[in-house]
C-alpha cells in the first residue's frame, strides 16, 4: 500500500507545475524573466526533456530528499523544508498532547457519567470545538491572552510559552473529535461483562476505567489519533499563519504566493509522506493495544 500511495503522491506533486497554464519555464521565471532567463531555467530544471524523463528524475531526486533550488531564496529546498518541518512537528506534537489530554479526559468523564450535566457540557464543548475555525480561535486567544491579559506571547518562537496558544488553537478541534470517539468507544466497553467482573473482583474504579476499559476502547480512539495528526498538519497551515510560526504550512503558503514551485512541490511531498507514515505507525500501534491483531 505504501509504495503505490507514495508513487501517486509524487505524481500529484510533480504534476502541479505542469498543470499551471503556460510554459513551466516561463511560470518559474516569472513575469520579468527575459528569453535568456527562461532558456536557462528550462535547462537548469530539465524542462527541455521528455515529461516521463522529467518525472523519473523528480521521483529519484525526491527519494533522496532533493527538491531542487528555491526560486525565491535560491537556497536548496531540502534545507528550507527540514528547517520548517522541525517547527511544524513541534507544534503538531504539542497540539496532539493538548488534544489527547483534553479529549481523553472529557470522553472518559462523559462515558462514565452518561446523560449527566458533565456529559452534556462535554459534548456541547466538543460540538463547538469541531465547528470553530482554527484561525478564528487563534485570533481570539491572541486578543484575550496576549493583548488583554499579557500572559502569553502573541506569536513567534523561542520558548515553550510561544507554543501554548498555537497548540491550544490547533489541538481544540482534535480534542473534540477524540472526546466524541472516546465517549462512544468507552460506552460500548463499560457495558461488557469483563468490566462488571473487574468491578466485582474489587478493583478500584480508576483501575477498572484506565486499565481494563480504556485499553480495550483504544482501537477506535487510535484510528482517530492517526487521522487527527493529518488534520493537524493541515491545520498547522492556518495556525502558523495566525501565530507567525516558520513551519512547513507557512513555507507552502509563501511558496504559492511567490510561485516558487520547487518549494510547493517539496512541501506537498513532505507533508503527504509524513501523514502516510504516521498512519502506518498508527496501524502498527493497533497490535500493541490489541494482541488479537497481528500483521503478517
Amino acid at each position: 500500500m505504501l509504495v503505490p500511495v507514495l508513487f501517486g503522491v509524487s505524481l500529484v506533486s510533480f504534476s502541479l507545475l505542469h498543470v499551471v497554464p503556460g510554459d513551466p519555464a516561463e511560470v518559474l521565471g516569472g513575469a520579468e524573466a527575459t528569453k535568456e532567463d527562461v532558456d536557462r531555467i528550462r535547462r537548469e530544471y530539465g524542462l527541455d526533456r521528455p515529461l516521463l524523463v522529467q518525472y523519473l528524475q523528480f521521483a529519484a531526486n525526491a527519494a533522496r530528499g532533493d527538491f531542487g533550488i528555491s526560486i525565491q531564496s535560491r537556497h536548496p529546498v531540502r534545507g528550507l523544508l527540514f528547517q520548517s518541518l522541525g517547527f511544524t512537528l513541534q507544534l503538531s506534537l504539542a497540539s496532539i498532547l493538548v488534544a489527547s489530554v483534553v479529549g481523553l479526559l472529557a470522553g472518559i468523564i462523559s462515558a462514565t457519567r452518561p446523560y449527566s450535566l458533565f456529559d452534556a457540557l462535554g459534548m456541547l464543548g466538543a460540538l463547538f470545538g469541531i465547528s470553530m475555525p482554527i484561525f478564528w480561535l487563534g485570533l481570539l486567544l491572541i486578543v484575550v491572552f496576549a493583548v488583554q491579559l499579557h500572559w502569553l506571547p502573541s506569536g513567534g518562537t523561542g520558548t515553550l510559552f510561544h507554543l501554548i496558544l498555537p497548540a491550544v488553537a490547533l489541538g481544540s478541534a482534535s480534542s473534540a473529535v477524540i472526546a466524541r470517539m472516546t465517549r462512544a468507544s468507552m460506552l460500548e466497553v463499560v457495558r461488557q461483562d469483563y468490566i462488571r467482573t473487574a468491578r466485582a473482583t474489587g478493583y478500584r474504579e480508576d483501575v477498572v476505567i484506565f486499565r481494563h476499559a480504556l485499553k480495550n476502547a483504544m482501537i477506535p480512539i487510535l484510528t482517530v489519533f492517526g487521522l487527527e495528526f493529518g488534520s493537524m498538519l493541515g491545520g498547522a497551515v492556518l495556525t502558523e499563519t495566525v501565530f507567525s510560526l516558520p513551519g512547513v504550512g507557512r513555507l507552502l503558503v509563501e511558496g504559492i504566493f511567490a510561485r516558487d514551485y520547487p518549494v510547493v512541490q517539496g512541501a506537498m511531498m513532505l507533508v503527504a509522506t509524513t501523514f502516510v507514515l504516521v498512519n502506518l505507525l498508527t496501524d502498527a500501534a493497533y497490535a500493541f493495544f490489541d494482541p488479537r491483531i497481528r500483521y503478517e
Partner: protein
Amino acid sequence: MSEAAGETLRERYERAGAGGELADLWRRLRRNRAAMAGAGIVALFVLLALLAPALVPFSPTRGDFGDRLQAPSPTHWLGTDELGRDILSRIIFGARISLQIQVVAVLLALVVGVTLGAVGGYLGGRMDNLIMRAMDVLLAFPSIFLALGIIAALGTGLVNLMIAAGISSIPAFARIVRGSVLSLKEREFVEAARALGAGGGRVLCRHLLPNCLAPIIVQATLRMATVLLTASGLSFLGLGVQPPTPEWGAMLSNARSYLIVAPYVATIPGLAIMVVVVGFNLFGDGLRDTLDPRLR
C-alpha cells in the same frame, strides 16, 4: 422504483399516507431536538443568503471612509470595518458567497465521488483497484494541503476555490458509495434486475444508487460544514475569494490588523462561520441518526 420516478415529495407523501416512510422519517427527525436546532440555523442561513440584496441596510462593498472602525451602534448594528463598510451588510452578503461555495463544491464532490465509488464498487477488479488507489492518494494529503496544491496550480479566485474545496471532498463520497454498492450488489433485488435483462448502468442508477441515498445525503450535509471551514480558511490565507468580495474568511484576514483597536471586527465573521458549521453538523448528525443509525 419506477413508480417513484417523476413523483414529487408531496405526491409520494400523500401516496404513502400519514404512516408512510417520509412521514415517519420526518416524525423521527422532529423528535431530535438537536437536529431541529441545526435545521433552524441552516434554514436561517439559506434565507439570509437568498434574500441578501433585500435585507442589507448598506452596500457590502462600498464604505464611508469617515465611518471607519466604528463600534456597533443603532446605525451600524455590528459596526464598520477598516474601510468604513457596514459589517452587518457584509456578513449577510457573505452568507450568499459561502452558500454558493458550499453548494457548488459539495455538488462537484458528490457527482464525481458518487460516480467513481459506484463504478468501482459495481465493476470491482482492476477498475475498482485503480479508483480506490487514486482516492488513497488524494487522502494522503491533509485536505487543506490538497486544496492549497490545487490553488497553487489553478490560481486564486472564487471558481478555483470551489474546485479546490470540491476535489478535496471527492474521496469521502467515493468511499461511502463504494462500500454501500459492494454490500448491495449481491442482494436478491439486484440479481432479479439483472436476470430481467437490466444492463450495468440501469442496475446502478435505478436499483443501487437509490438505496445508497441515506449515507450520501448525510455525507453531503456534513460536508457542507467541512467545505465552509476549508474555503474560509483558504480565503483567510489570501488564497481564496479576493477583496472586496465579502467572504467571511477574507473578512477575518483583514480584521487581523485591527485586533487591538477593534476586536469586534474579527469576532463577528468567525462567529458567523462557527454558527453555520454548528448548524450543518447538528443537522447532519440528526439526519444520520434518523436515516441510517448503523452509521453512528
